[in-house]
């Protein structure tokens, strides 16, 4: 038997593969097609204080090896989540990570407070790729001080694991990771989507109603892996790797690069059981390799012989 479980700040996860926020609903939608209890955990769609309708269509475009989305944080709001979804999730044997999004620091706090009061979520993941309405729409996640500030405020309000989900659309993601670590974050999730765009040349219009959107899927895996590697080398808290993971082999790459766990996103759209297949494939692979604990893979990339960054690509 391969050991697959792990802990973040004392909270137990059955295995190291979670469903990524926004790519698995609230965890209760496709129980027909997949036994969600075989996942390491479920990260909910981002929850805001009030329900959000989201952006007009089109919200989705397929690209080479990936897809763009501009969902616009459509979600049922934290109140309905607590009333309708949490009871169903509580009935399952699954670790629930509630993902929180907001357009002000106060809103982050309010959502967290409501979830704390309700109980039932085992951990929080904070989506900072949100426009800060007070600062004219500047994205929280691209400003290190704002990202740290959110962490500080939330840390003071919960003892549950606080996971900051970082955006890759910055020059150095590790700076942000260190900043949130210093404010007491228990882990970081790396990465959210890359900013991208696509155009219909016949109509001369953007293929997303919001012009730009978030790129995800296999196309971004190399970028995500590099960001995880960069982050894992500069913090001591766990890094959760996200970006283009579709297969057990993809996930193992992230473990080797330093991820303690991974999340499967876009791959769920192709197969809602993708996360379960990844989790079980990892265990099988470990068995064939004589590895008795998936955790033993974490950060074991062999870079000996790698030339220095100074000599690196140009």
């Amino acid at each position, binding site marked *: 038997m391969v050991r697959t479980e792990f802990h973040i700040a004392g909270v137990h996860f059955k295995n190291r593969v979670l469903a990524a926020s926004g*790519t698995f609903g609230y965890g209760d939608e496709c129980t027909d097609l997949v036994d969600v209890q075989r996942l390491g955990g479920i990260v909910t769609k981002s929850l805001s204080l009030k329900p959000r309708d989201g952006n007009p*269509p089109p919200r989705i475009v397929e690209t080479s090896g990936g897809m763009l989305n501009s*969902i616009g944080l459509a979600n049922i709001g934290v109140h309905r989540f607590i009333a309708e979804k949490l009871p169903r999730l509580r009935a399952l044997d699954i670790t629930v990570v509630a993902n929180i999004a907001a357009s002000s620091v106060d809103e982050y706090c309010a959502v967290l407070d409501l979830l704390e009061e309700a109980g039932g979520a085992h951990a929080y993941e904070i989506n900072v790729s949100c426009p800060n309405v007070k600062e004219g729409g500047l994205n929280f996640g691209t400003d290190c001080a704002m990202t740290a500030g959110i962490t500080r405020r939330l840390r003071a309000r919960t003892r549950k694991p606080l996971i900051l989900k970082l955006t890759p659309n910055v020059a150095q993601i590790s700076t942000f990771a260190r900043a949130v670590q210093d404010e007491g974050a228990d882990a970081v999730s790396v990465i959210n989507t890359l900013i991208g765009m696509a155009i219909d040349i016949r109509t001369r219009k953007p293929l997303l109603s919001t012009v730009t959107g978030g790129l995800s899927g296999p196309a971004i895996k190399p970028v995500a892996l590099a960001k995880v590697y960069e982050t894992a080398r500069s913090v001591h808290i766990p890094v959760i790797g996200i970006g283009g993971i579709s297969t057990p082999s993809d996930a193992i790459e992230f473990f080797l690069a330093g991820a303690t766990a991974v999340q499967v996103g876009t791959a769920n759209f192709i197969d809602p059981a993708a996360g379960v297949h990844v989790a079980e494939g990892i265990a099988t692979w470990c068995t064939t390799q004589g590895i008795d604990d998936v955790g033993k893979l974490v950060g074991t990339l062999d870079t000996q012989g790698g030339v220095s960054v100074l000599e690196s690509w140009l």
Partner: protein
Amino acid sequence: MLHILARVLHVTSVAPNVYVLAFHAPDLAAAVRPGQFVNILTGDSLQPLLRRPFSVYRTEGDAVEVIFQRVGKGTAALSLAQPGGFLDIIGPLGAGFHLDDPRYQTAVLIGGGLGVAPLPIATAALQKAGKRVVTLLGARTAGQLVETHLENVHVATDDGTRGLHGTVVDLAAQYLPVGAHEDARLFGCGPTPMLRALAEFARTRALECEVSLEGQMACGIGICQGCPVELTGQLRTYALMCKDGPVFNTRDIVI
């Protein structure tokens, strides 16, 4: 909702660039209702990445059929599917047509182009329910019409090569003179501009009308929020095409 590997029975070209694909899927055939769709993985590697949605065209015993036009990578791959091979399919998906309402007697099925797709399965159900069926088909040109497994077919072509020289909505106007058909209900499927015209037609004639929409989808099962359909009433409130639709009453949505 099932996730199956279905054996391909045949892929048959029924018009230029139009194919009927039949696959063996007993449970799906038993479960599917008219207007529902299936989401097919068209490639085994990641090209294209996402599944492709297709309305169910017919069921015949244990077989399920879809009809599709080859427009891009996914449908090109499907057109080459080999009998005996297997396709990865999720379905039945979405909410279908509400065919069994006792408040109407005549179902007017209206298909524009490949919008004919859900009409044969609907026809079979309507016949069972004892409704009268009239079918209005539109196509660019005569050669593109696919008229099998339908009842009482009237046609219109954009180029006048068969039937009415005009659109299928023009044909509906001709077939349904003002006030004449309170007991009729419209069920439409086709390109968005046609559905928009049809909705306007139904509104002016005060006819109930359900349409099956098309648009971008990522998951097809309600977990990505990628397929909003704007609802009438409040600005920017949306239903999900894949879960709440693809069939909607034209009264409820902004097309």
